[in-house]
């Protein structure tokens, strides 16, 4: 495995399977009364969050703590960043503090990549701009694998705002590596122009794709996009691309419904679909801690290159 996890494309098939298999074993730790392993004792993990994020930051924090690492949370608000410190100077500060890993969430695509050139520790991308969010893709793959079995030849449909979604891009790359067939469904205005070069199919018609899917992943429609004329109205979006009860009924019986959260109930996903037993939304959160433990262990647990 590479020293950093910046893109889902950094992972070979063997790397990805090693992370998923490691997570399979680590999942059992969450069931014990002592949910802690001594593995990363004396290692320091810095959570460097330039964007608000509750679940991802808490998830990384829980993962690092369960492995006994020391965790330093650094959020841009109320820190030297709000006084105008650059990413590079912040990176040098972290370097001087001896961070063994930096988990970074940043609004600018490519920030983790830059950071990796300034620090000696491992850099883990926890979401950069509209670029990538590899640990989300890993936890999604982990969730799919535990519900559906091996992902080779499985048909995964990703629906919604692909254009602004780092989750979609990372998922397409990782699922392709794992042998799944991905179909993106979105209004043409919400697909990036480069999508033709992605290793996946593209469709504008959800109802045509739905019956064949083994898993359907709904992406959040970000509130701030709703007024940007990507689609005529929220209601129309919901009618054409939302997952409601009727559409759920037309899906294959074993197919699962996923959502990276936070959801807009009634918009891209109906409340009763989100709460149905075929929804994995709560599992995805729990699996997030497990998969991040696996990533931190594999990046930091062995000898450092």
């Amino acid at each position: 495995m590479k020293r950093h996890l910046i893109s889902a494309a950094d992972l070979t098939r063997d790397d990805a399977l090693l992370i998923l298999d490691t997570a399979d074993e680590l999942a059992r730790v969450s069931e014990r009364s002592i949910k802690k392993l001594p593995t990363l004792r004396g290692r320091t993990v810095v959570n460097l969050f330039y964007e608000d994020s509750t679940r991802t930051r808490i998830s990384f924090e829980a993962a690092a703590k369960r492995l006994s690492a020391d965790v330093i949370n650094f959020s841009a608000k109320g820190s030297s960043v709000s006084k105008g410190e650059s990413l590079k100077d912040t990176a040098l500060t972290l370097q001087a503090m001896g961070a063994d890993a930096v988990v970074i969430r940043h609004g600018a695509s490519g920030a983790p990549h830059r950071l990796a050139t300034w620090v000696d520790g491992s850099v883990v991308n926890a979401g950069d701009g509209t670029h990538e969010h590899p640990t989300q893709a890993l936890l999604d793959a982990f969730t799919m694998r535990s519900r559906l079995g091996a992902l080779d030849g499985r048909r995964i449909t990703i629906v919604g705002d692909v254009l602004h979604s780092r989750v979609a891009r990372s998922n397409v790359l990782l699922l392709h590596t794992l042998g799944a067939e991905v179909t993106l469904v979105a209004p043409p205005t919400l697909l990036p122009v480069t999508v033709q070069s992605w290793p996946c199919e593209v469709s504008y018609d959800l109802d045509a794709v739905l019956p064949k899917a083994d898993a359907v992943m709904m992406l959040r429609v970000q509130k701030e996009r709703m007024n940007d004329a990507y689609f005529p109205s929220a209601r129309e979006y919901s009618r054409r691309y939302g997952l409601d009860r009727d559409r759920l009924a037309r899906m294959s019986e074993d197919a699962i419904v996923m959502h990276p959260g936070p959801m807009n109930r009634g918009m891209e996903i109906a409340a009763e679909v989100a709460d149905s037993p075929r929804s994995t939304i709560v599992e995805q959160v729990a699996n997030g801690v497990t998969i991040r433990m696996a990533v931190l262990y594999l990046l930091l647990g062995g000898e450092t290159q």
Partner: protein
Amino acid sequence: MSDAPRAVLDGPDINRALTRIAHEIIERTKGAEGVVLLGIPTRGATLARRLGDRIAQFEGLKVPVGYLDITMYRDDLRLRPARPLGRTELPPDGIDDKTVVLVDDVLFSGRTVRAALDALGDVGRPRAVQLATLVDRGHRELPIRADYVGKNLPTAKSEQVKVHLTEIDGRDAVLLFKPGPKQRPGAAEGSEG
């Protein structure tokens, strides 16, 4: 490459050793009541299953068998790239107040067993912990000893001992490797404990 390995124990030898260990466990624990066998993956887990079968056969008592992966508790994690994890699976009734017999294939430095004792502390509180090993090759680096030993095997520290088991390797054998001129120290797996 090194010379061809020498088979120190063959299939029947291993069978006899396990049969004797099973009898000793029954004897020492007065009928294996309250005993839990915990194998250390990979080969210790297989040996634990075999011991469980034998105890069931001799005593008519089904002893719970589980697996305890100790990778995350090793003290030499940082000396090598991160390793894949083995399976940890405890019997449904747990290990609290039980006599846990740890089972491993080779006892060497004692570091694996130390890690196993740490791991045990995180999953329960056994009444007592004992250790069974198929081969004790000496060269302990910690104050640890086995309660049940299949074979005491005097070795040079530079030699390597590898246990092969039918379920994993296609045949039963204990092999002794002489050090080759270019061999990296500690390159063989399954013989580092």
